């Protein structure tokens, strides 16, 4: 259901966007801006990932390990960068890369809210405007040059610079796109007095900042409108509050491309700004009096609304910090509860737990059961890798019919399936084996299971190698090469079916020994194949290239089969342990099987 929805949703979104681009160039610019911005976020995260586990992590840990430190970090960096949005998106990428925790991230974002108010002071007090966006283009150029370097750190730095460049470029395009809307904002039309007016203007402030992507730009409009007496002083304050909430849109946009940690931080940022905004609106009169009081002390003139706005901005953000900091623990708890991580895509061990480690037998049994799971998952990959359905592979349908039914190559992402279903379990098994008591580690049983795991991995590697040519040649017009590759497929299926029968106990009960007959078939088939292959090349039915591929892939197929037999030999056990040992003693060695083959030939 979810898949069908996804299949329909994506083309629909693309169609709607394409139609939008066709009818509105502004919409195109805005969408391109969002896309570039998100790409910048990805690049930034990639860049910070290069520094994980090293210096940057240590610096960040040291400068954010206490709440006051993370707050100060936010204040200082935002004052330097003059953009709280930028600091929040960088913090989101820190968090997504696992460099810092959520509470440290929230501390930085809270601090950034206070740090951003220094912008108002700079603009109002000194007419100074730090425009870091001017560095965007050089950042992109330097960033891309560094990305091409082979050194990991330089590459990482390149991604960070390019990421910042793309962020600014994205914001620039978004602003360009919204430029037309800017002229339509006439604040005088909305003049309403009292609390409804405050809420309305706060909402206008949110909308204006979302549209212009800059709370500074909104502040400039507010000051102009106030000077022209289009709005009251109270409404101007409400607009400033709205601008403060609206600025979180950048962080929310940034979190779109991030993991759950980034989204939790963006959520925290929004909650902080909304709560602060509400408090500021509710106590607007008290704030107003406080602003007047402070202005009086520091010598700001009665009519100097620009500086008074700066005071107000600082004051209510400070109030927000005072309110929210004691609640930071609860906020973290709430955010982690509401915004959860998507369920893990990777297979999780089902048997390897602490209690299984307590006894030798339970430890071995846990490893065996987990290995059987890996083997089961591997069957799925083998079937798909051979362009088959798993159920058909294990069915009683004649193999020729199964091959006919699946005569075309299937699109199958081997690496993704391996990562998802095998790698994590195999890793867990290795870790678990290293933790079992020393006397268990040296036991025959555990070493056999360990070998079985290695066999499974070798089988899968073989399937991966085989898949490339097999997919090409089973679709080939040349019937000879197609038949040869289908023979390889049949051979593997035949062995898997036989092993399944032996393993499920539907064969007479000397499981380990039953595998020797399969080994003999394998040796015999190898000899027959070599003869046939030579004939095919000599008669020009297949090209030399095809011949080389076939030889290599046949070897892979024998490697696969040999290891499949070995997995079974190492994982199967007779009812009693002593009997399994006896069966392993009697099992024929490779040279003994070869001599049976020679005897047969005579």
């Amino acid at each position, binding site marked *: 259901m979810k898949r069908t929805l996804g299949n329909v949703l994506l083309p629909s979104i693309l169609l709607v966007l394409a139609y939008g681009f066709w009818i509105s160039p502004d919409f195109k610019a805005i969408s391109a801006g969002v896309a570039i911005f998100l790409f910048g976020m990805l690049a930034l995260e990639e860049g910070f990932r290069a520094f994980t586990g090293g210096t940057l992590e240590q610096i960040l840990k040291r400068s954010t390990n206490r709440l006051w430190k993370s707050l100060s970090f936010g204040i200082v960096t935002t004052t330097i960068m003059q953009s709280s949005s930028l600091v929040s998106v960088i913090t989101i990428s820190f968090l997504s890369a696992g460099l810092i925790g959520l509470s440290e991230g929230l501390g930085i974002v809270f601090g950034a809210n206070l740090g951003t108010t220094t912008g108002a002071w700079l603009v109002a007090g000194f007419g100074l405007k730090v425009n870091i966006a001017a560095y965007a283009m050089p950042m992109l150029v330097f960033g891309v040059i560094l990305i091409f370097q082979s050194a990991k750190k330089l590459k990482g730095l390149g991604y960070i610079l390019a990421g910042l460049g793309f962020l600014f470029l994205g914001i620039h395009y978004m602003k360009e796109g919204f430029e037309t809307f800017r002229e339509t904002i006439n604040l005088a039309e909305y003049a309403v007095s009292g609390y409804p007016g405050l809420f309305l203007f706060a909402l206008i402030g949110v909308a204006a900042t979302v549209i212009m992507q800059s709370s500074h730009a909104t502040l400039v409009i507010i000051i102009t409108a106030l000077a022209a007496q289009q709005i009251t002083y109270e409404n101007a304050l409400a607009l400033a509050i709205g601008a403060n909430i609206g600025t979180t849109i950048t962080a929310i946009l940034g979190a779109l491309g991030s993991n759950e940690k980034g989204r939790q931080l963006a959520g925290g940022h929004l909650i902080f700004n909304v709560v602060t905004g509400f408090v500021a609106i509710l106590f607007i009169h008290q704030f107003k009096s406080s602003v007047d009081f402070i202005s009086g002390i520091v010598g700001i003139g009665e009519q100097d609304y620009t500086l008074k706005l700066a005071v107000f901005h600082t004051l209510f953000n400070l109030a927000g910090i005072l309110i929210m900091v004691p609640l930071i623990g609860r906020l973290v708890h709430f955010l982690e509860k509401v915004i959860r991580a998507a369920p893990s895509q990777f297979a999780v061990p089902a048997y390897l737990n602490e209690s299984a480690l307590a006894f030798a037998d339970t430890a071995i049994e846990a490893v065996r059961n987990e290995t059987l799971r890996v083997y089961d998952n591997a069957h799925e990959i083998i079937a798909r890798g051979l362009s088959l359905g798993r159920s058909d592979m294990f069915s009683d349908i004649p193999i020729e019919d199964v091959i006919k039914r699946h005569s075309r190559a299937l699109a199958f992402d081997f690496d993704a399936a391996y990562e998802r279903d095998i790698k994590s379990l195999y890793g867990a098994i290795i870790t678990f084996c290293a933790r079992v008591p020393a006397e268990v580690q040296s036991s025959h049983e555990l070493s056999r299971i360990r070998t079985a795991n290695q066999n499974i991995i070798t089988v899968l590697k073989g399937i991966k190698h085989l898949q490339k040519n097999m997919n090409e040649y089973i679709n080939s017009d040349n019937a000879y090469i197609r038949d040869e590759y289908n023979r390889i497929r049949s051979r593997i299926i035949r062995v898997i079916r036989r092993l399944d029968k032996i393993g499920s106990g539907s064969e*007479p*009960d*000397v499981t380990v*020994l039953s595998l*020797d*007959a399969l080994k*003999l*078939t394998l040796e*015999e088939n190898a000899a027959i194949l070599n003869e046939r292959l030579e004939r095919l090349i000599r008669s020009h039915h297949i090209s030399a290239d095809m011949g080389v591929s076939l030889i290599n892939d046949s070897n892979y197929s024998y490697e696969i089969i040999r290891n499949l037999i070995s997995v079974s030999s190492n994982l199967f056990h*007779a009812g*009693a342990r*002593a*009997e399994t*040992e*006896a*069966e392993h*003693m*009697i*099992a*024929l060695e490779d040279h*003994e*099987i070869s001599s*049976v083959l020679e*005897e*047969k030939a005579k």
Partner: protein
Amino acid sequence: MKLRKLLKKLNDYLHEEEKQLHDKDESLARVLKKLKNKELDIQHKIEIEMDESERKFLEQELKIVHSQREKGIRLLSDIRGRSSGHKPEEAKSGS
């Protein structure tokens, strides 16, 4: 009764290697018995099998089982040769 059990345990402890050989002997003999049954079973299957390729496969399997039995008997005689309580000729009982 308890004393007899205790003495058996003491005896096992003092003759651990012998006990191990005895266990191996027992399990090998059991597997050999199973293999003998399997050999008979395959022989019977070959007689009634109509499909040529399947019969070939069964014949191969028969050869393998036969070689396994030979190897098993050899191992069993070795063990019985080493074990002081048994004589090598007894190994024939497994075949």
